[in-house]
């Protein structure tokens, strides 16, 4: 039981890191969005390269909410249904800047390693 959970954790860890970054960027670029909207945007941008279980978006949202990077608020969706809208906080913007920098640095290094 515990072994199974650990395996899942390691797998999602990799995904989560990048997923967080992508969601933060999305929220920064698009403003407040509900979960479905975020998933659509990511689908659009990834152009089917990235396969995403959309449920994991919520796990990520929750985690970032606890970290204080994003905030949630109830509002009405496009067709006037009750939906939760997520928006990026100031701490989230700082985090996004930091993670973007990290990502660029690491991908730069990996890129150099792979091309030489």
């Amino acid at each position, binding site marked *: *039981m*515990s072994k199974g959970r650990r395996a899942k954790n390691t797998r999602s860890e990799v995904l989560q890191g990048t997923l967080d970054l992508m969601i933060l960027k999305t929220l920064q670029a698009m403003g407040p969005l509900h*979960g*479905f909207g975020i*998933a*659509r945007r990511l689908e659009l941008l990834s152009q089917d390269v990235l396969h995403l*279980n*959309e*449920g*994991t978006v*919520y*796990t990520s949202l*929750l*985690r970032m909410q*606890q970290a204080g990077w994003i905030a949630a608020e109830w509002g009405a969706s496009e067709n006037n*249904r*009750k*939906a*939760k809208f997520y928006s990026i906080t100031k701490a989230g913007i700082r985090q996004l800047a930091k993670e973007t920098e990290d990502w660029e640095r690491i991908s730069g290094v990996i890129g150099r390693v792979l091309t030489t």
Partner: protein
Amino acid sequence: MSLPNLWQRIRNTARDRSPDVEFQAEIEEHVRLLAEHYRGQGMTEEEACLAARRQFGNQTLIQEDRRAKKIIPVIESLQGDLVYAARMLRKNPGFAVAAAVTLTLGIGANTAIFSVCNAVLFKPLPFYEPDRIVMLWEQTATGAVMTVAPANFADWRNESRSFSEMAALNPNSSFILPSQNETARLAGAAVSSNFFSLLGVRFALGRNFLAEEDRPGANHVAILSYRVWQERFGADRDIIGRQVKLNDTSYTVTGVLPADFRFGSSAADFQPRNQGVVDQFLVNAPGDQFDIWAPIALNAEKLQRGTHPLRVIARLKPGVPLAQAQAELNVIATHLAHQYPADNRDKGIAAVPLKEQATGTVRVALQMLLIAVGLVLLIACANVANLFLSRAAARRSEMAVRVALGAGRGRIAQQLLTESLLLAGIAGTAGFFLALIVISVLSPYLPADLSRAGGVRPDARILAFTASISVASGIVFGLGPLFGTARAQAGEWLKASNRVAGGGQSLLRNGLAVAQIAIALILLIGTGLMVRSFVKLIHVAPGYRSEGVLTGRLSLPRSRYPDNHQIAVFERGLLEQLEGSPAIQSAGFTTYLPLSGSDNGWAFLIEGRPPLPTGIFNFAKYRPVSAGYFETLGIPILRGRSFTRGDEREGSPWVVVINESMARKYWGAEDPIGQRLRFGSATWRTVIGVVGDVRHEGLGGEMKPEMYVPMEHAPNVESGPTIVVRTALDAGSASAQLRESVSAVDRTIPVDRIETMDQLLSRSVAQPRFRTVVLAAFSILAFVMASIGVYGVINYLVIQRTREFGIRMSMGATQTDVLRLVLRRAAALIGAGTFLGVAGAVLLVRFITKLLFQTAPVDPLTFAAVPVVLAIVALTASYVPARRATRVDPMIALRYE
């Protein structure tokens, strides 16, 4: 995990499940939208739903993940554990009740004693920064402390720099307050004007004395206690500035003290107190609180160095430690000794923190009881741990299944601890209420010096104490089974199924039994010593016959009884009145009744002896009495004669009766009769008789030289004499007769403190009796619990080895063999426990040396008898299961399991 996050989690854990529902709705909405989205791309309804679900992933997993993130898993499982633990307790009511009752007794007893300690020892005194208040005493070369001479007080106050303020109190005054229905005598005190400001008292009404009121002539002002204001003045708010008649003199009321103002719980709190053994056995006078306060108005006439009436309090300046103040006082003392050798030779000054002063004699006793009751709780925990161990063995397969299903050790520990803490929580709650009941039932029986505990209220500190000992004991007895279970592996447990405990567990069990016996023995030996000491104390001959004697204190106002002659006339009138009654056998007067807590002494000179060096005195206690006093109290006349009415007549020769100790100390083999001595006045007094010694300060007190003089020739005006009456009447009708006779002579004279001599004697040993009885109760509780503990261990051993005994008996072992086998094991445990207990007792008794009266701490009789009795009882307790072992039917035993 950040702090706000943790807080969020705790809240989420405790909160309802509505966020779960909300989240579920959010997820479902997402899936619905997704399905719509796919339908828009041309899928059929069914395909779209399916695709949406697939695209979204596992909903349950996300929901669970979310929950794990939002809460603290330990706490969530705790809820389950609690429910489970409660169910386990309900399913084993016998076990639950036995364990809960044992613990309730232990925790209840601890809470009760702690509450008393809390009220008496731990609570800060109700003054402003009480830790900086000290009492100052004169100290003799032998280290004994005594009250202070006014002139010395004035010098200390002028010369010291360590104190921000210093104030004096003279408790030796009383006020007579006339009223329509009943004239009352009120305890009064004269104080310096800064007395209340030093303590930091906020007045309920009015104000403190002014400095200019603390001068002779201006000092007819008074401050009332709250009680007197309520009871005598009907809580009249206009009392301030009014005139009240006290001792036939007018006083202006300047203030009323707050309701909770108390200066000491009993008068004894502010007696000079020496840290000796004897101290624990002296009388503590009934706790009169002062009701009337007047300025002390020290003038040149009062500023003497030869009399010592004052109690001195002082407030340390901020930042000045006690040791520094004491060093300064030492310098002042040396200086004063040099300057006034006649009075201050070899005199030191002792500074005692007020708190220490106020709890002097009860501190040791209460600390002892607190330790004793703590030991009782340990035994109770050991018993409950034993019960838990037995049950852990029975639940072995349950634990094995849990481990096999993946429960970690931490998880199992959590569950077991939940069970023991639930039990401890139940017992703690019950114990708390038990303690409240015990205290309210026992309050009236508390000795005077513990009376502060009478008004004990449950406060946060007591609750915290009960909660922490409950949790601590829950952990202590909950850990036992944990150690037991942690050793074995799940697989072995499963295989062993119902078989018996391993070596680790029985070692733990035996250890617990040995510890229980040892602790119970320590308590029992302590009790044995206290009982022996108490029996010795109450068998001390007091020097008088207490039965059939009634006493009562009179108060004669100075205005109408200005001198001893007037007083003696009144006394004779009353005695004649009483002697007219056939039920009264005899009657007499004294000023300082034995056991009353009041006393006085005088330095004297013997005629014809060479003068003594400066600062050295002949000193004896002095007692003005009337004719008939010795006869009434039954003090034997050893030589010479007693006082007669003739000795009290005006112009009769001055005479004195001395006691045996005084005769021995100052005349040795010589006959003192006919010798002359003088004190208090220039007239020589002839010794006419020698009487037996009286234990004035209590049964545990020392015999001191005493001299008796007729009231008429007393050097002080004795306005508060005590009458003693020997009568065949019961106390009720005797006191009615006494009051009647007094009002027949003078209607306005109040009589108070009407008590029989037997009551005084009984109260004088109240504190030793209290601590002996309470300790005995604890020891018996400990004794019973320890015996049950031994029984439990042997019982378990018999169950454990039933099969083995069956085999042995089928192989030819006799019943006696089996009995011997079991009892030998019991004897080994008891022997080890007894040995450890005796060793522990030898180490610990020295802490109660102060509480023992004429009893050696390592009293051979106690140390021999108590272990034997304990061993016999414990062996008997183990005989019951041992007996059962011999009745094992080999066939049944072999089929056992």
